């Protein structure tokens, strides 16, 4: 299928839920109040590693206004988790990180609940703890989980081709080690839930989760009930970025409190709790890279060794570590690669999914190694990127099959936007240029060999369509994109399409928002449903127009015989006629889609996604040699996301991602002291403000993904994947020092400059 003229797709449409958000009417989790509702509070571990000898809750229970206190005794004491079941809703016998949930209180108000926490008495036996992943792998290190030898949760060891021969064939070899950083999502809304247990056995839980059905099965597992005993209703979500994909205990504890108290319980993380034990931060990794190149700049070999910090429990870190080890081999043309990756338990907060998954760690390392090679080879980095870039038809050494790919276009466009050639030719002192490329997926096949979606569209008798989908909106603009796709397929204006809130009792199974999957995966399912609704409309209209359904066209809310627009029927008239007749029925249809991808086998060979998105970013920085401050003079991002469904939304995704990337590169990171976070608040953990944002130019490649809805692919994560490496490469170009640990602080730059001067 080729490009076509669209009537809704590609138009600058505004958010379908924009009015509610601009007026404060949108109902977020903290805004939900139920009759008789109690407030919950969690008692958290003050120790990184300790045995619980005794818990006495009697004083807390006697406090006026307290309705119940719960501990592990109120749970089934079975561990749960996305990939490895290793975390409990409330600690069983032992705590493994500072902030872990030990007990919880429900009371008539927040103040009383907080007061009750102080009355819980616990006898502890502190244990030796381990905080560094590499130390944790050493013999004799304290064990976080007794059955995990050397604290290793998972190992990946993959070689494709002949790595030794490939290095022997290489003209230039670069080797280096890079460390990424624990970055938090810092959604302005923290995680929360309102659980309402009914004595019939049903838990209704309002949540600000971005993955409703995954939340449902994890919560059901932790509570020891069937999935349908749990109903998840999505509130408005104040930012997700991976942090609200239910890898934490918040909703489970709320459910346990509600059951015991017999009343609804609201449990909202404070900002500090969000840092201590809420959203699971980016998996921080130490990555050793060795790459071999031909004299002409072609990549010949790549070897990596990844040590990833899992924290005390496994959220999505197993999949994230896999991505860090393997995904980048889909960005450039590789033949011989080897990777060894270790996911290691430590006594710190569990790490997990954050926009970019494993990419922002892997690209921080690999894209800098490639930059080092370009300097050693004396070849312009933009040329190295271009000559090695993946192309349509490329199959990565691990089986990823690329259909559409406009990476070269992105490289050229990023170079053009930043003024690469001119600026390189007229280099000013202390200023430098950097660039890096990225690849991302549009959905990832890793949950039960399914990477699909489904949606139902009902066409009301007034001609307005309602999309029912369990994918949900987490702020990224999914509603608007889905409405645009349905409107395009149905031939109605976007104003005539709505999307309902996600609710696991009312919609079919959907995996939710992760892996940049919704535009591509959910978009295809919504389009399928819309096309079936259109069939029903056309059947009816064919009767009314005395024509054949094949000759009908729908456009702007009207249906007509091709070439006879003057005799068009409004969609509403057709919908009404379909319903109000003898034997009538409302128009409704369900659609589905499962990506044409292949689950990775035991050797990690497979095709993880149905489509791959590409991008290239470039930057010009100025480094102050006196202060070490890095100033971004201009930033440029070029993205290949196939057809852009809604330019306003797409630009917003890239702009927001670059902002998070800049934060990751220059300022963000939680610091720990013996496992205790020392800056768990917004004044000590800074995220970029409007003042920190540089001028940004961006562009979308002229691209069309044949398997996507109207040619579209994913985009959400792409924009933050390469940013840190882009900036670091520019710092090197500017002043000749390479920063290998994130973030790139003025202190590190100054220190590196001093070291460099000393060597002279």
């Amino acid at each position, binding site marked *: 299928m080729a490009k076509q003229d669209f009537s809704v797709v*590609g*138009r*600058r*449409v*505004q*958010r379908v839920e*924009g*009015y*509610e958000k*601009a*007026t*404060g*009417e949108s109902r*977020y989790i*903290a805004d939900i109040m139920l009759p008789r509702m109690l407030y919950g509070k969690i008692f958290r571990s003050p120790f990184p590693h300790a045995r619980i000898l005794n818990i006495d809750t009697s004083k807390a229970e006697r406090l006026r206004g307290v309705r119940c206190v719960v501990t592990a005794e109120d749970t089934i004491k079975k561990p749960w988790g996305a990939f490895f079941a290793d975390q409990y809703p409330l600690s069983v016998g032992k705590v493994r990180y500072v902030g872990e949930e030990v007990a919880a209180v429900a009371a008539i108000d927040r103040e009383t609940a907080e007061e009750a926490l102080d009355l819980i008495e616990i006898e502890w036996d502190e244990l030796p703890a381990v905080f560094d992943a590499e130390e944790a792998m050493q013999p004799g290190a304290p064990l976080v989980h007794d059955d995990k030898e050397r604290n290793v949760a998972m190992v990946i060891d993959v070689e494709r081709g002949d790595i030794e021969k490939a290095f022997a064939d290489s003209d230039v070899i670069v080797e280096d080690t890079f460390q990424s950083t624990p970055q938090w*999502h*810092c*959604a*302005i809304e923290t995680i929360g839930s309102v659980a309402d247990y009914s004595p019939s056995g049903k838990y209704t839980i309002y949540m600000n989760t971005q993955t409703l059905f995954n939340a449902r099965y994890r919560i059901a597992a932790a509570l020891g009930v069937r999935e349908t005993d749990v109903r998840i209703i999505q509130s408005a*979500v*104040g*930012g997700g*970025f991976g942090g609200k994909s239910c890898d934490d205990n918040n909703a489970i504890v709320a459910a346990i409190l509600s059951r015991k108290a017999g009343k609804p319980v609201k449990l909202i993380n404070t*900002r500090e709790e969000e840092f201590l034990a809420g959203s699971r931060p980016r998996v921080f990794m130490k990555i050793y890279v060795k790459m071999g190149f031909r004299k002409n700049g072609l990549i010949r070999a790549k070897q990596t060794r990844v040590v990833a910090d899992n924290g005390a429990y496994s959220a999505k870190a197993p999949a994230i570590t896999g991505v860090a080890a393997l995904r980048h081999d889909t960005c450039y043309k590789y033949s011989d690669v080897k990777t060894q990756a270790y996911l290691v338990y430590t006594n710190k907060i569990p790490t997990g999914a954050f926009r970019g998954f494993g990419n922002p760690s892997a690209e921080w390392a690999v894209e800098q190694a490639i930059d080092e090679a370009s300097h050693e080879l004396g070849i312009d980095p933009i040329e190295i990127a271009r000559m090695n870039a993946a192309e349509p038809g490329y199959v990565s050494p691990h089986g990823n099959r690329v259909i559409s790919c406009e990476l070269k276009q992105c490289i050229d466009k990023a170079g*053009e936007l930043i003024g690469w050639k001119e600026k390189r030719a007229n280099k000013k002192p202390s200023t430098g240029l950097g660039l890096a490329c990225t690849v991302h997926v549009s959905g990832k096949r890793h949950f039960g060999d399914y990477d699909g979606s489904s949606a139902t569209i009902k066409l009301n008798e007034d001609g307005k369509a309602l999309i029912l989908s369990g994918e949900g909106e*987490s*702020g*990224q*603009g999914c509603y608007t994109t889905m409405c645009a796709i349905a409107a395009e397929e149905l031939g109605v*204006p*976007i104003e005539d399409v709505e999307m309902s809130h996600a609710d696991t009792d009312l919609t079919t199974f959907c995996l939710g928002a992760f892996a940049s999957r919704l535009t591509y995966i959910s978009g295809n399912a919504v389009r399928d449903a819309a096309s079936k609704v259109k069939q029903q409309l056309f059947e009816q209209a064919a009767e009314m127009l005395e024509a054949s359904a094949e000759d009908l066209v729908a456009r702007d809310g009207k249906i007509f015989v091709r070439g006879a627009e003057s005799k068009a029927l409004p969609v509403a008239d057709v919908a009404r006629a379909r319903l109000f007749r003898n034997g009538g029925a409302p128009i409704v249809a369900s659609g589905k889609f499962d990506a044409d991808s292949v689950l990775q086998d035991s050797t990690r060979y497979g095709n993880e996604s149905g489509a791959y998105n590409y991008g290239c970013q470039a930057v010009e920085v100025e480094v102050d040699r006196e202060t070490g401050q890095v100033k971004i003079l201009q930033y440029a991002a070029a993205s290949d996301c*196939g057809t852009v469904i809604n*330019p*306003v*939304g797409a*630009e*917003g995704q890239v*702009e*927001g*991602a670059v*902002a*998070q990337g800049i934060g990751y590169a220059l300022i963000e990171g939680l610091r720990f002291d013996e496992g205790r976070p020392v800056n768990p*608040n*917004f*004044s000590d953990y800074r*995220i*970029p*403000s*409007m*003042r920190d*944002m540089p*001028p*940004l*130019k*961006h*562009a*979308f*490649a*002229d*691209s069309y993904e044949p398997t996507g809805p109207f040619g579209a692919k994913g985009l959400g994560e792409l924009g933050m994947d390469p940013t840190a490496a882009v900036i670091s490469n520019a710092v090197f170009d500017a002043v000749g020092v390479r920063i290998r640990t994130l973030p790139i602080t003025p202190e590190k730059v100054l220190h590196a400059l001093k070291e460099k001067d000393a060597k002279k």
Partner: protein
Amino acid sequence: MKRPVTLFVNGESYDIEIEPNRLLLHALREDIGLTGTKEGCSIGVCGACSVTVGGRLVSSCLTLAVACEGKEVLTIEGLAKDGVLHPLQQAFVEYGGLQCGICTPGQIIAAKALLDEKPNPNEEEIKEWMAGNLCRCTGYYKIMESILAVMHGKIATGHAGGKPAHEAKIQSLGVYKPVSKTS
């Protein structure tokens, strides 16, 4: 000990009984039911709880409710009149100045306080003022454009009956320049 307090919010008066240490944020959200004002960091850094008291921009998470007696409090719910959005609200919707929307009430109130105090700030002044309102979704570019659009009179007001037209009207304003778009 709770005491009776009369708060004057968005042109309406509310008689409530609160503890002297009750924060304005919680009085607004829980005692009055105006949940448009959001709690983000609880320490006056993120700006999600921004409201104006007597025309001055404050963090309601750092302001005692009892201290607001006799002063006019303005929250996001007080901006739209008769279903017609305030130009700043209209701009944030049209120009993509909001995504998840949790910081949006604070952003809009802060921007209004800025334009009330200084109708024609330059971009540096806008950045300086708005630096107290964090957003994790937009990267701020479209927030800046939304504010500039209002200043430059690009926002048509007077949409009656709730939701405005659907076409977004964002254009390049020098901060960012889209170069190529998929046809």
